[in-house]
């Protein structure tokens, strides 16, 4: 065991899989020469060579589209999209191709690829280096969508994603890269995709969240604990498939739910969680299903005064928890 950052854990996971399986390659913009915009593949070019570490032309449609072809023909490519905001040019290849290959061929072909990308705000990235994209992916049957929050989860889920027989969208919150540290086993381990993790147990209110917001929610839960309110924090980890059992079990226990996500409110991922609760846990609910999310603005503005106005934070989460507690 050693303490690592999320970034280090991801880097280790990538290196181990490249080592373990020759069919694994990393392709994307600046993944080689530069070691990635966030240095997730630093030193990889020297270590694994141009064969496994492929600096591509600047063209996301092709990064994903070619990775699909590689996966169809026996490889396990990891396609890196430099920032989640630049996933959109590849959206057609993801939705109409990667997600539908198995279905449309009646099970004959599969696309065992991973798309990795840093998402989220809080680093003054402005409108185009801050977006959340999980909804556009988690809405699409045929894809898997993973969004870890800790080093341990990141590495274990990354390895599972690489070994998964279906296309996995691996979303890394860029603010967690260096901010979040934790113990990571030295030996090879995987975590199953599709299992949520109770990051903090509690009995009064359930918080459903993922990514950076797990940490903000834990902070808020700590604060509420001091006020005598016991908050359970569930880290979904996998957005598609969703671990509905864990979600429902917790809310049936606490009877109150707060959903926290960084994306803009309307049709953010939490909308589906709300809908599930309103339908499947209705009889257990002792209060409205609340959401803390970013406001419906087109993206995060550059200046921190506006950025921090818009982003959810521990104080906003604590505020909502207090409201729910008082309900």
């Amino acid at each position: 065991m050693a303490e690592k950052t999320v970034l280090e854990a991801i880097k280790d996971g990538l290196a181990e899989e490249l080592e373990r399986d020759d069919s694994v390659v990393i392709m994307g913009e600046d993944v080689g020469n530069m070691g990635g915009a966030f240095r997730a593949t630093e030193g990889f070019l020297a270590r694994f060579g141009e064969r496994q570490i492929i600096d591509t032309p600047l063209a996301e449609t092709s990064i994903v589209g070619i990775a699909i072809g590689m996966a169809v023909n026996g490889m396990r490519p990891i396609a890196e999209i430099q920032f989640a905001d630049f996933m959109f040019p590849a959206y057609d290849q993801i939705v109409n191709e990667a997600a539908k290959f198995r279905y449309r061929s009646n099970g004959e072909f599969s696309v065992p690829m991973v798309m990795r990308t840093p998402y989220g705000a809080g680093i003054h990235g402005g409108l185009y280096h801050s977006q959340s994209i999980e909804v556009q992916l988690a809405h699409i049957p045929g894809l898997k969508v993973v969004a870890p929050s800790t080093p341990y989860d990141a590495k274990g889920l990354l390895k599972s994603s690489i070994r998964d027989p279906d296309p996995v969208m691996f979303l890394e919150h860029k603010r967690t890269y260096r901010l979040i540290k934790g113990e990571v086993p030295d030996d090879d381990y995987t975590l199953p995709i599709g299992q949520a993790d109770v990051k903090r147990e509690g009995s009064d209110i359930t918080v459903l969240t993922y990514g950076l917001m797990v940490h903000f929610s834990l902070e808020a839960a700590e604060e509420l604990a001091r006020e005598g309110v016991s908050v359970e924090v569930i880290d979904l980890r996998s957005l598609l498939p969703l671990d509905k059992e864990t979600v429902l079990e917790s809310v049936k226990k606490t009877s109150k739910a707060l959903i926290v996500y960084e994306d803009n409110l309307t049709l953010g991922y939490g909308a589906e969680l709300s809908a599930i609760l309103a339908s499947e846990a209705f009889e257990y609910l002792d209060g409205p299903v609340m959401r803390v999310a970013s406001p419906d603005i087109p993206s995060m503005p550059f200046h921190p005064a506006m950025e921090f106005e818009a982003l959810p934070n521990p104080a906003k989460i604590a505020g909502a928890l207090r409201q729910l507690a008082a309900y």
Partner: protein
Amino acid sequence: MVVARVTADVRVSSTDLGLTSSDLIAIYRDMFTARAVSERLWLLGRQGKVYFLVSCEGHEAAQVGSVYGMRPGTDIFVPYYRDLAVALALGSEPIDMVLHALGKSADPYSGGRQLPGHYSSKERNIVSGSSCVATQILHGVGTAFASKYRGEDVASITYFGDGATSKGDFHEAMNFAAVHKLPVVFFCENNGWAISVPQDKQMVVQDISGKAEGYGMPGVTVDGMNVLDVIRATREARDRALRGEGPTLIEAKVHRFSSHSSNDDHRRYRTPEELAAEREADPVARYRDLLIDISVLDEARASQIEQDVINALDDAVDAAEASPDPTPDSAYTHIYSTEGM
């Protein structure tokens, strides 16, 4: 005498292509079958039994020739919706086509999930495609990458129409393949139309092959109505690819004899004269004449082949019609692997 010259040329041509008489006949059978299946399915469409169809009529020489220029069983084929004759030449049976058109449970390409025209076979290295124009070009680049990555002697060929060249996917695929010198053949079936949009509203240039140069790869235009020419061009491109010299863009100039699809009526945007004139260069009839001229076939033998195909097709239609529909709940399978990771 013209005929004699043609004859001699073809003999030389087919010989140095390594084609035996029985190859030449097999090629004819494939082309004729493709035509016959297209026509029969169109008829089933008229009868309301098939909801949607794309015909390959006019493209038979290009499609069949491209297959004979590659190495079926080894190479990887990434077709688009018009490539009925590609699938046939790769070993699909007419009954497969009818099952597919009817969306039957036994449809070998998709189990009744895809619109007709979406050929796919893991066994035959035919990669499943969507209806989205041009996306498959990138997949063909990816399959070629994997073959090269593993050091295999395998090329990929990816098919598309003139319309597809307008889309970014084409551009990005060409560029990446050239940079990595991938063993892939870009095979453009240029029929001059993207549904109702004529080539001059799609692009300024006459020859799509000319687009290759900007990517640093060779481009060749070939008469797509002449199957031997297509075989030669494709084989050269394949050889080049496997020598490690990278991709080639082949433009096969063809005519689309039918409307774009069964939902279209091209008489709305084309004149009868134009359509009649194009039909004169019929690639199937032309090749039949050639085989008779060079005495690989005679009229009787040709008719026999045709009758056999028609008979088999009759049976195929009957069998396919009697075949069961998909069950409603078959809609729920094969979304994810059931094997876990």
